[in-house]
């Protein structure tokens, strides 16, 4: 089986003036289709940095990153944008729905940046409603984010991440802003999606969430400290 994500000796440095911060050092690992990977580690270890490199929003300083067989390093801004749009879905700690858009409009947002004629408008709208239905928000298409609870917002965000049927879902502390009950629901939803074959990489601080994954990567000080299947 070929990996969806494969990293080889990936490093990331931040320069501010003369000071160079080595945030990621020689990271090498692969993620295969259908995996549910949790990344954990202390604050400042470089988890978010790693996730956003995986998400093609930042470029590594050195090393090779292949997403679904494509060497990401060679791509232009347009190329990276297309990858984010078609192969990746993001879920954020603070939900990041656009407050002026309804739930449905938020879910439809990724389609704006996809090539496609007008014919697809109706199909897209139906698909967005199906997904919202699936994540349990079938009644709230036209609610604004301000009218939804944290858990509901995160469900809309997950629906949005699913909209373009991505290869991988990347989630940065998706339960970080939720109480434990809502957190459990979101984890259950993610596991359910993974059960249907969706590849998911999530960053978390919460050991209980981490334990739910099938594989746990621990990062310390920019290096992989451990990488093991969960019991």
């Amino acid at each position, binding site marked *: 089986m070929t990996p969806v994500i494969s990293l080889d000796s990936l490093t990331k440095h931040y320069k501010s003036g003369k000071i160079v911060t080595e945030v990621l050092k020689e990271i090498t690992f692969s993620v295969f289709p259908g995996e549910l990977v949790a990344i954990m580690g202390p604050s400042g270890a470089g988890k*978010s940095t790693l996730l*956003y490199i995986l*998400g093609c*929003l*930042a470029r590594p300083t050195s090393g090779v990153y292949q997403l679904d067989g494509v060497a990401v390093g060679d791509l232009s*801004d*347009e190329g*990276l*944008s*297309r990858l*984010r*749009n*078609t192969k990746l879905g*993001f879920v*954020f700690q*603070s939900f*990041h*729905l*656009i407050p*002026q*858009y309804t739930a449905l409009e938020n879910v439809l*947002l*990724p389609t*704006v*940046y*996809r*090539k496609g004629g007008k014919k697809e408008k109706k199909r897209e709208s139906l698909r967005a409603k199906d997904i919202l239905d699936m994540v349990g928000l079938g009644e709230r298409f036209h609610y604004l984010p301000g009218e939804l609870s944290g858990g509901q917002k995160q469900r809309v965000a997950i629906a*949005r991440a699913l909209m*373009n049927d991505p290869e991988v879902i990347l989630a940065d502390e998706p339960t970080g802003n939720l109480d434990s009950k809502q957190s459990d629901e979101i984890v259950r939803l993610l596991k359910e999606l993974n059960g249907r074959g969706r590849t998911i990489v999530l960053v978390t601080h919460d050991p209980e969430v981490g334990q739910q994954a099938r594989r746990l990567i621990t990062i310390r000080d920019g290096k992989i400290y451990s990488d093991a299947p969960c019991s």
Partner: protein
Amino acid sequence: MFLNNIKLSLRDSLKHPLFTLLMMTGVVVSIFSMTTIVAVGDGTKAEIINALRGFGFGGDVLMVAAGGGRIFRHRPSAVKTLKPADAEALKQFPFVKAVAPRQGIRRYPVHFMGRSFKTRILGVTPAYLEVSNFQVDMGRAMDGRDMRDHRKVCLLGRTVAEELFPGNRAAALGQFIQIGKFFFRIKGILAEKGQLGRFDMDDRVLIPLSTASVLFIRDTYVHAISVKLRDAAKIGIYQEKVKAFIRKRHHLTPDQPDDFRVVSSVDVVQFVNRSSRELTALLIRIMIISLLVSGIIITNVMLASVSERRVEIGIKRALGASRRDILVQFLFEAIWLSLIGSLAGVCAGAATVYFLRNTIPAAITLRPFLMAIGFGLLVGVVSGAFPAWRAGQVDPIRAILGGRS
């Protein structure tokens, strides 16, 4: 995808109504004032043209006047360069419908039965009435035989007829009036034309050109030739053709100045409008400054909007928007609001002008609308360019992580 961004820009503008309104205000005000200025300018021009048409100097008439130099002079010149033969020769051009040469004989007293009145005497050909838009109200017009036989006949302007035959103009027909030493039979009375400014169009007596040449001027030169054209649209081209033609007829070498002038109503309008043009130019400068100010307002408010919407930009980037997509969206937001602001301004201006149409001379033409669209696009593109570029440069990760680096 480009289209999607444009659609999104329209939708997102509506979702930030406060920013949008703030940015629009300046454009609305500038374009509103532009519209009223242009409308008043056009209206004044239309009024002048209308008056000139009544004067027999419509858009399809060229006037060839004796003597070179500036277009307008206060007194008829005594230059003797222009001949009836020049008028005759102009008929050979297919674009010429009719020519009317004339001699102007200062103001002369005319007498009838102890009454007398000082008026303008003009020596004209039969074509004069048609070319200068005069109609005969009573009696008959002048004809070729009057010309050929140097007959002492005349047509009275309405004012002259009223002065000499008060209350009974019809009685004038067939009577003889004295002009200088000579008696002229009244052949007809002209229909009323009214005033052009302080100038009374009906204060005139027309006599045959041939008669005037023999009895008054004692020479055959004419003061002016009115040339009526078949097609007013190319008047500028014809004006040049007539000029070249008469220069040639007068055997002028290239280094000699014209000894005649060819004037169109456009020249007259420009002359009359010069002072109002200067005013318009000043107002247009004010308008450009106010558009500049609106542009600066748009740029600044948009920069504020971009930094307030950094998170939104970050989200869109994560969902697949490229830098260019973001740039296009913000650029079009600027274009939309500037365009919509312009159109609102021009409509408000047109409405204001319409309601004041009885108080001020103003014409609503297509021009301010086209200008509004032009300026709207221009201001939008120019003022939106920098903020849009900045929007494209927003670092999505920083935006998403919320100021944390």
